[in-house]
């Protein structure tokens, strides 16, 4: 059967079970859009290409499937770069299709030509420029395979216009690609080493990261922790991989982690880190990280091991398979933790927790942002998928929202991309139309991709935006307060649109909430609406995120905040 390139693209998307694309048309992709016009694949028209990538990324994080977006050449392609790097830093499987000028014009500085494979080479897992229609089908199949296999990541496929118009024989059964899957089987010797370490440990601690969620290993991690009463802390990307309401859960560790999580890391004698890469925001100064512990690191990617933190026992393997094998090994060898020792360790952690609980003070007539997040949890019973923007809103969410399930906390961890939350929430809501989906935003971040309110309105994608509006670029302001003697250089965002009117102008319900007593009712009202809603919560302007590990300090040495802030 002879088909055009644009037809082959859509056939291959169907082969890959793609039912949804986020995109934005343009000259170089006209042929593809002409095919989409009569396709059953759903297309969401975003308002900026960055929004398309974040939406595909949010879709991928919530579903575990590959997210797909489609944009034109030149500026359409370059607008995807921030989104691609966001996905790359957090190992999110997406495939980005970009239009390209005809192969005959490549290199000529043609209209809307940009070397997007060159530009995205460092921030994709892999990318392709499809030079002929004959290689198109296999390239698309490879792109999806690479995106989802091993340590996942973004793949970009650049599609010249003439390749989309050219014809070739198409037979999906004939497509052969090489296998990129590198399967590492956990070695029994390593498991027995880990068994020995666990048997001798007085103060073991589990540390869970994004790799547990990506590897669909949350159930195994939870079983391991509960069965052997091992307390668990997690990175930002690991939130949800262990139930946030479980007594063994210590909360996030690191710069804005809980005091007891950081003290536990600093005092544990065995740290079993699963699917983490020991980012600088997590470790504090490397020299003082987990100083008393033997460290075991389980990860699918050898390049994550011994990169920042040198570990005693590296285990390279899929998190799920490795944890399964470990649980089996421990059971077969009758591992029984010393009950008394374990009780003492858990009691020590409990004392730290009582000494410095996560707290804030909601008194007076000004809304505290943490109160909004806690109330959100109460109103939804935690049954909601949360995206965030970046900064204080993100850290307060990580601290105060208890995530019980994987794939329910969707945030830009590695790159820290402001403007991520709204389009990501749109992507999530498209995947789960019956779930409550909330973007917890700041007034700075929301303005970076606020145009996507139009997308939400057009398709009635009923995301709820919880805008914690403090009139500042809050996290930068916090650092200016703490480290630059309150010189608030260009962080005052008081000049802002009227967000309620702006929401309404887009066709989204706008609400303003200025008093603590109105918070709960506003949230209930928003969730009872079947429309997208933006709630403009006027919150305390100079609230800081505490506790905090100051840059260059050790995790054991936290700044707990001033009395007025916490009491």
């Amino acid at each position, binding site marked *: 059967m002879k088909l055009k390139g644009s037809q082959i693209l859509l056939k291959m998307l169907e082969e890959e079970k793609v039912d949804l694309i986020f995109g934005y048309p343009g000259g170089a992709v006209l042929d593809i859009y002409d095919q989409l016009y009569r396709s059953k694949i759903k297309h969401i028209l975003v308002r900026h290409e960055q929004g398309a990538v974040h939406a595909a990324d949010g879709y991928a994080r919530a579903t575990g499937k590959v997210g797909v977006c489609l944009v034109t050449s030149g500026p359409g392609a370059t607008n995807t770069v921030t989104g691609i790097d966001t996905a790359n830093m957090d190992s999110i499987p997406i495939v980005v299709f970009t239009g390209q000028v005809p192969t005959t014009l490549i290199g000529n500085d043609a209209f809307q030509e940009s070397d997007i494979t*060159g530009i995205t080479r460092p921030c994709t897992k892999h990318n392709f420029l499809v030079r002929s229609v004959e290689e198109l089908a296999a390239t698309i199949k490879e792109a999806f395979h690479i995106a989802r296999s091993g340590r996942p990541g973004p793949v970009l496929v650049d599609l010249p216009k003439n390749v989309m118009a050219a014809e070739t024989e198409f037979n999906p059964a004939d497509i052969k690609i090489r296998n990129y899957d590198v399967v590492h089987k956990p070695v029994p010797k390593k498991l027995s080493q880990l068994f020995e370490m666990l048997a001798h440990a007085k103060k073991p601690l589990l540390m869970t990261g994004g790799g547990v969620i990506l590897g669909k290993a949350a159930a195994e991690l939870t079983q391991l922790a509960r069965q052997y009463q091992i307390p668990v802390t997690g990175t930002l990307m690991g939130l949800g991989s262990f139930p946030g309401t479980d007594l063994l859960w210590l909360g996030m560790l690191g710069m804005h982690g809980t005091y007891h999580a950081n003290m536990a890391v600093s005092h544990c004698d065995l740290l079993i880190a699963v699917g983490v890469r020991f980012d600088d925001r997590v470790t504090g100064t490397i020299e003082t990280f987990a100083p008393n512990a033997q460290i075991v690191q389980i990860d699918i990617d050898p*390049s994550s091991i*011994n990169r920042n933190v040198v570990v005693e026992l590296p285990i390279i393997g899929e998190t799920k398979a490795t944890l399964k094998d470990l649980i089996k090994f421990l059971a077969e060898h009758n591992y029984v933790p010393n009950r008394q020792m374990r009780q003492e360790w858990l009691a020590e952690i409990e004392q730290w927790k009582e000494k410095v609980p996560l707290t804030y003070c909601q008194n007076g007539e000004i809304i505290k942002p943490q109160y909004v997040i806690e109330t959100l949890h109460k109103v939804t019973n935690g049954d909601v998928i949360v995206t965030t923007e970046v900064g204080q809103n993100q850290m307060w969410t990580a601290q105060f929202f208890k995530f019980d399930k994987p794939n329910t906390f969707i945030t830009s961890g590695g790159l820290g991309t402001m403007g991520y939350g709204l389009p990501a929430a749109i992507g999530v809501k498209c995947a789960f139309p019956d779930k409550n989906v909330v973007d917890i935003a700041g007034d700075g971040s929301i303005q970076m991709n606020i145009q996507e309110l139009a997308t939400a309105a057009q398709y009635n994608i009923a995301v709820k935006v919880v805008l914690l509006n403090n009139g500042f670029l809050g996290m930068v302001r916090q650092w200016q307060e703490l480290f630059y003697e309150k010189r608030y250089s260009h962080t005052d965002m008081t000049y802002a649109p009227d967000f309620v009117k702006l929401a309404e102008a887009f066709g989204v319900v706008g609400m303003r909430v200025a008093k603590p007593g109105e918070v709960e009712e506003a949230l209930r009202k928003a969730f009872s609406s079947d429309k997208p809603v933006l709630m403009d919560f006027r919150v305390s302007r100079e609230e800081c995120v505490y506790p905090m590990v100051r840059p260059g300090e050790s995790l054991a040495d936290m700044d707990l905040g001033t009395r007025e802030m916490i009491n």
Partner: protein
Amino acid sequence: MEKKEHIISILVYNKPDVLARIAGTLGGKGYNIESLSVNTTTQYEISKIVMTSIGNQATISRIENQLQRLVDVISVDDLTNVESVHREMALVRLNLTPDKKDQIKKAVDDNQWKAIVSNDNFVILEITGDKAQLDLAMARLEPLGIADITRTGLVALELKN
């Protein structure tokens, strides 16, 4: 840990941008490539890259891990600690100026250097050997006045498979 030169042999799929990926990955992560040699193998679709980089064992392991992540990289081997032979080549032009002419001719004979072009005005020498041999030759050539020089990267082959 001791810093030294490591010889890394990389098998890759012979794709148009594979070298850019490798150079970009190492450059972007702050690793330096000291020398580089690339060509196809007996199979046209597979190329071999031999590169050298200076670092301690931990740094070199990180380089290997980063390279292994690339989709078009088939294998990465550090040949530094396995038995292997190494060669580099230099092409050197010496101008036969009246004051150096006799000295140059004598040096070429004494060292048994291979002159691949020779006329009244200049001579072009092809010098191959391992790094030590090349360094020695360079030291001897220096006083003769090197008019121009091109050196290849190092190539290496394991004694056993």
